[in-house]
């Protein structure tokens, strides 16, 4: 595993990270983007950032969680750039349909449909709340925001998702 010496990751270290984490990272990209080609694109972009982040990766308490933040950001960038592109139904990505036990599947799938419409701060809140099932207090702590702020953002996201579902059920 990488050590905290400030140098870039070697190709061998990168390949090892891929072997160990690619399944979960690709699964997450596919869930967020609902598009195979875009997911591959996001994964590559994330690994370009990871190459230069040896020190941050070595310091991370949970490497997977740290890499999830990187692929979340890469996916967000692609969503913003390609927001007109029509995403595939989540059902087509069978390995992403299963949600962790604490996640409300219906709410998650509704929010996934409006991700490209969200601002970056809303997107972060939405992914933590509806994809990972993180409680509001923990989201507030992680993002340095108050719980009422998180509550308002979640309310806004839910209303947008509901409006979209009314138009395109």
């Amino acid at each position: 595993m990488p050590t905290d010496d400030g140098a870039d990751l070697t190709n061998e270290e990168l390949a090892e990270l891929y072997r160990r984490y690619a399944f979960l990272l690709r699964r997450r990209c596919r869930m967020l983007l609902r598009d195979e080609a875009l997911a591959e694109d996001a994964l590559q972009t994330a690994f370009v950032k990871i190459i230069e982040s040896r020190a941050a990766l070595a310091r991370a308490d949970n490497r997977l969680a740290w890499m999830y933040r990187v692929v979340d950001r890469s996916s967000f960038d692609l969503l913003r750039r390609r927001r007109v592109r029509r995403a595939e139904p989540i059902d087509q990505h069978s390995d992403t349909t299963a949600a962790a036990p604490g996640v409300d599947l219906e709410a998650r799938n509704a929010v996934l449909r409006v991700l490209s419409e969200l601002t970056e701060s809303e997107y972060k809140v939405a992914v933590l709340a509806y994809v990972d099932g993180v409680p509001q207090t923990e989201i507030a702590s992680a993002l340095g925001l108050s719980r009422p702020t998180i509550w308002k953002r979640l309310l806004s996201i839910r209303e947008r998702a509901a409006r979209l579902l009314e138009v395109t059920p």
Partner: protein
Amino acid sequence: MNDLPNHHPTGARLDAVITGDADPHAAAHVASCAECAAYVERLRQGAESFAAAPRPSPEAFVQAVVRRRAAEGARRARSRWIGATTSVLALAACVVILVRARPITAPPNDVPVVAPGPGPIRFKGGSQVAVIVERRGGQSREMGALSVAPGDRIRVEIALDHDDDVEAGVLADDGTWVALQPATHFGAGTHFSAGAVAFDQHVNEGWVVVGPPDAVARARATRDLSSVHAIRIHPAAP
């Protein structure tokens, strides 16, 4: 949608169980919660299937990432350079326009394909194309002429050092066109085509064609392949 309290560890913490990154509390919870244990087991099975046949292979993926990083570095350097030399930029733009506006030298449609110069593949400035061939569960990356057998499946890998609009497909010698990648604006980096083409029992000769949408349209209409990447497809010897 509701905000019911969640007594299970978060999804990311559960996912970390299969990579060995889980915190002790999450690991202990999985050991005592059948619902979370089932979720983790499903993930573990998926990860094991992926590890048995990763696509792309770790080596191919790393190479693609390294190429993408180099391309992004070149693009950033070019942006700095362009910002510092406005007059040179204007000249460069003129050159680009001249190249893009080059008159079509293609023969009429009923004349055979104009092959793309010597060799089976052409490289246009700043981009590179390879074909990924899947055959009987294996995978190879080809940059020269392809020998394709019935049952093979192909898709293209496109490496760009700049943002560009790209379209790709298979142009059979009889004029049939099968899309691999609809016209799409790609950023710098390596991209795989959204679609793949599977060959049935009869493999027609033709070309894998990749390029800007206008150049691809010209290639399809005129069979002049001089402005696109073109990789020849031959039926494999029986």
